[in-house]
């Protein structure tokens, strides 16, 4: 099977470094960006297989990303949002916008790996 490419957008450098390491270790190819603008540019260059994205980011938020992908690019690729604001309202609005999964910070890398695997399976293997 071809290596899956992931776009990881997270402005907390510490968390980003840890997540990238774990994702790469599991055989994914990871493009890491630190703000919403870079994320959008990354998407314009190449569409990844799935996106892991922090909700609160400079320039372009995770929610805006979901809207952009689903409504403007009409893409259904898996999106997993992560956020430290884990109140119910946030989670519901993220799902309503079309996000596939939502994780509250601090994110456990092991759990993220499981969720990424599940999403990729669902989208590409069915």
């Amino acid at each position: 099977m071809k290596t899956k490419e992931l776009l990881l957008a997270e402005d907390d450098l510490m968390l980003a470094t840890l997540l990238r390491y774990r994702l790469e270790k599991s055989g994914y190819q990871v493009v890491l960006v630190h703000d919403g603008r870079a994320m959008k540019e990354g998407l314009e260059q190449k569409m990844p297989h799935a996106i892991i994205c922090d909700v609160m980011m400079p320039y372009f938020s995770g929610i805006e990303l979901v809207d952009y992908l689903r409504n403007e690019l009409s893409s259904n690729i898996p999106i997993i949002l992560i956020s430290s604001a884990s109140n119910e309202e946030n989670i519901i609005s993220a799902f309503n916008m079309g996000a596939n999964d939502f994780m509250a910070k601090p994110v456990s890398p092991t759990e993220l790996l499981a969720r990424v695997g599940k999403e990729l399976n669902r989208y590409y293997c069915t």
Partner: protein
Amino acid sequence: METRELLSHLSKLENGLNSFSFNELNSDEAHELKRTFDSFKTGLEDKVFGTPIVQTMLKAEPKVLETRQDNNEETTLIANVSHEIRTPLNGIVGFVELLKETKLDAEQKELVNAISAASGNLMDIINGLLEFSTLAAGREKFERVPFNLNNLVGEVAFLCRTLITNKQIDLTVDIDGQVPFALVGDPSKLSQILLNLLGNAVKFVEKGKIHLKVNLKAEQENRTYLEFIISDTGIGIANDKLKQIFESYKQAEPDTYLKYGGSGLGLSIVKELIDKQQGCIAVTSTLGIGSKFKFILPFDKVEDETVVNIVKTTKSEKESTSIAGARILVFEDNVLNQKLMENRLKTWGCKTHITDNGIYGLKLLENHEFDLILMDLRMPGMTGFEIAQRVRESNHKQICQIPIIGVSADFDVADESKSKAAGINDFILKPFDADELLQKIAQNVKPMVSEKVKKSKTVISQKVVTNDVKLINLIPIMEECMGQTELLDELVRLFKQNILEFIGKVKIHLQSNNAQGVDFATHKIKSCLKMMEATTLLEICDAMSKACKTNKDLKYLTFLYEEFIQEYPMVEDALDKELMKIKLED
């Protein structure tokens, strides 16, 4: 900055609002936004054109304006107006944020973003204007307290380093050996000046050096003149622009604003701050080579040798009476007095619980920690004396030792022997003025709070040694790193960098009264604190988040921020030790 510029921002805002299709959107937020904006606009127009006083001032002959007094009036007016503009503007900024969260199409989104950017800029300008006019109107007071120059410069340099992100800047500090450590002056104004000048340098240098040099310029009988030189290898300033650089409202190039932001008031504020302290400032610069700001400020010498020693050994702790953060339980039955007490204590940044019921108050004591009790001695039901006695009889050490200040209008009640027997530490007679109350509280709370800090520090250092309660826990994250100590090293480095950035950002937000900014930064830092299980810091951050949302007063927030800064070195220490331990075991 000129009125013209203010107006251009306003009309941008207005254009954005006009072309925005409110009817189509038909949301409550949009209408509320428009309403706020309209009232803001009329309010502003009234202020500038409406009232007769303003009109005469605007039309007055330049001669009249030249006199110092009228100038003062003008700046006072600007200060007042800026202050009043801020309130509705806050509303606009807030509602635009809400509007952004609603469902908007691409065009609407663009327009809302334009409104948001314009109102944000306007807010910056108004904040600068407010600060400048307060200064120019002579409302600003200058302190004369002993402080440690080395600590101050160190702190400023530390903060400036946190501002350098994504740039290769080498920031160095050199204090000449002849410069005395202990001085008398206004430390917070000096750090404001230095932060402004160094902050500017950071803004205009992409890659290169910034250097701060402090020299002893001259010494008189009891005055010390210090020279501060801030040099950088930035873009420099053209010769013909140098002259006006300190003039109010002017940046070197009109388009500087577009590129670097800022209201152009920073240097005017610096000049005012220096002028007001009988100092002077000068600048030399070469385009493309860099700039050099040089200022001389007089300070008083510290007379008392003991003070010199204290200032030398301790950090520049201000001895102003601050009781911010003190947790106070008030027993008071009169509703009016309750309100009065609550308001006063809140403005000083205290956390208060007020009750008229002895039993309930004693229950509160069991469930909450307090630093002080204010006790009206004439209470219905259980009297103040009885309550005090019950407090002293408590089995809990923290409860029975809380200082109690008796409050009463009746001098007889202030019977010393009776008070002592009941365990009342101090007494204040009604009616008292705010300052009297503040002093009484500070006298009774201070030694306790500082003792507590000392105690917690020794306890914490013991804990680190015995590993009883951990300031941080690296084990879970080490497991996530799958034993890669190099990665763990990198994560620890990034963690420290995150904290430094947080400290710098919050400082700036606090200086510009931006609770929203503090809230956002605090929100962001929490996840990495959780990852490291930095429980003590996390608790402080939780309290900060809460304070951002509920308490408009920034004093308490500042207190928490200082607590964070005090706590962090211990956490960093524990972090380094733990990392070392893990590496040795590896």
